[in-house]
């Protein structure tokens, strides 16, 4: 399956990435190759195989509702590119999230 330029622009928008014209070309090519490679799987006949959501184990294990200590805040914020007021500091976002 080959991606169109519009597909690439849509994916970039969803990932909040700004791509140059040259990058759209290059990444579009690379993404298309990956899709084609994985697309090989489509050739398998899975008509009689039930759909499965996970290949790891049959079912999730549940944990009891017991709180444990959280991470020290200094450690948490140490990895942040920027922090202020004991919080992560990010560029301004105005509208509500999804």
């Amino acid at each position: 399956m080959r991606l169109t330029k519009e597909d690439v622009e849509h994916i970039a928008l969803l990932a909040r990435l700004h791509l140059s014209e040259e990058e759209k070309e290059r990444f579009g090519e690379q993404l298309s190759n990956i899709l084609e490679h994985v697309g090989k799987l489509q050739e398998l006949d899975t008509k009689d195989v039930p759909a499965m959501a996970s290949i790891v184990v049959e079912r999730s294990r549940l944990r009891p509702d017991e709180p444990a200590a959280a991470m020290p805040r200094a450690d948490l914020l140490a990895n942040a590119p920027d922090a202020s007021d004991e919080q992560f500091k990010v560029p301004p976002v105005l509208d509500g999230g999804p």
Partner: protein
Amino acid sequence: MSSKYQPVIGLEVHAVLETRSKMFCACPVVDSTVGEPNIAVCPVCAGMPGMLPVINQAAVEYALRVALALNCTINLTSIFARKSYFYPDLPKGFQISQYEQPLAQNGWLMIDTAEGEQRVAIRRVHIEEDTGKLTHVEREGQRFSLVDLNRSGVPLLEIVTEPELHSVEAVRNCAYALRSILRYVGVNSGNLEKGLMRIEPNISIRPIGSTEFGTRAEIKNLNSFRSLERATTYELARQEQLVEAGGQVVQQTLGWDDGRGTTQAQRSKEVAEDYRYFPEPDLPPLVLEKAWVDKIRKGLPELPQARRERFIKKYGLKAYDANVIVAEREVADLYEATVAAAKTADAKLIANWLTGPLFGLMNEAGVEIAGLRFGAKQLAALCDQVAAGKVNAAGGREVLGVLFVEGGSPTSIIKARGLQQISDSGQLAAWVSEVIVSNPKQAVDYLAGNAPLLNFLFGQVMQKAGGKANPAAVREELQAQLSKLGK
């Protein structure tokens, strides 16, 4: 809304499942509206790489209680899915939610509307995780946002109704009914102000008689039942005006501005929803034992709807009073315990004192049942005294006021304050005759047809009695003496 269009409204409700720890990690759940930011966060809910989520059993149990109370079909195998989007309150870049195979679906609940009872279909009930909290800051000419992840990963229940509500009243009653159920099954306090329960109506209109669905707008940011009603009314009027002017409703998410009383678009069309759901690879399917689900079903309390029917039948309450009393489990519990403890007072008198004077005091002081300084025994004793004519209504209110502030025993309060009702006919007759003698003009005018003067004379007698006379007996005596005078 004019009679040309029919509102078509569905609700999407998010309710925090008030567990002790988070949905997929053991971080404690803290009140994210107060206190220190980022004190209840770990690598899992901060979205650090390589971390694995593990499902909180209590959250599943809470979700099942709600789903069962809403008469849903439970999917014994349900699947968690990744909902992908980029926004700073979502550290992983995706939210763990449920999509294709939710925990439960196809339920219903009963609500009241102007046309009578309505059965509203529940499309689905699923579990997901909450996001972090953003604060927008403008400081020294710099604009930025701050992220607090205390709320990130807190268990959330999403309840989606079918778009079957056709009036603002139905929307309000459906939201109240859902809140009542959440509180009855003990999973959520129903607090909208703190965002523990969030109600998002999706609204469209269509010409009366049409069965097609119009384009819908979704409203967010409603922090009270009042704003839910205002926003719904506003949006219905906006859509009607737009359509009447030849325009078209666009599908969009609107944010309610409570101060201005208007909505505004939250997201532009270019960033259309495209969440690329796929099964969460870190979480195998959630498989439930049927025996566990049955046990939870059996453990459900009597729900508001059933309790209301029982109250109407057993206590002879009017539908309205029954509704008011069963809306909150604690109120209904207090009511039943009071009826059981009362000796003279009947169920109706107790309902009147509960929903009238007591609710008045509670609303005024912002106190809930749990904060009362007295219980069913004292309320029953007070109602008994009123029913037996030992204290009149005004005195009873005074006793209730004292109970409300200080607690104590109604009979001792009546004694200590000298509130015993005076019904002694000799005493009442003496007061009445004194009042007529000292107000001859009013008595004559009353007899000449100025009926309201009776209230004046009644007031004079009550004043003489220090408010403690039996009002019915005073009226009777007053009328008797006046009519004798007229002959």
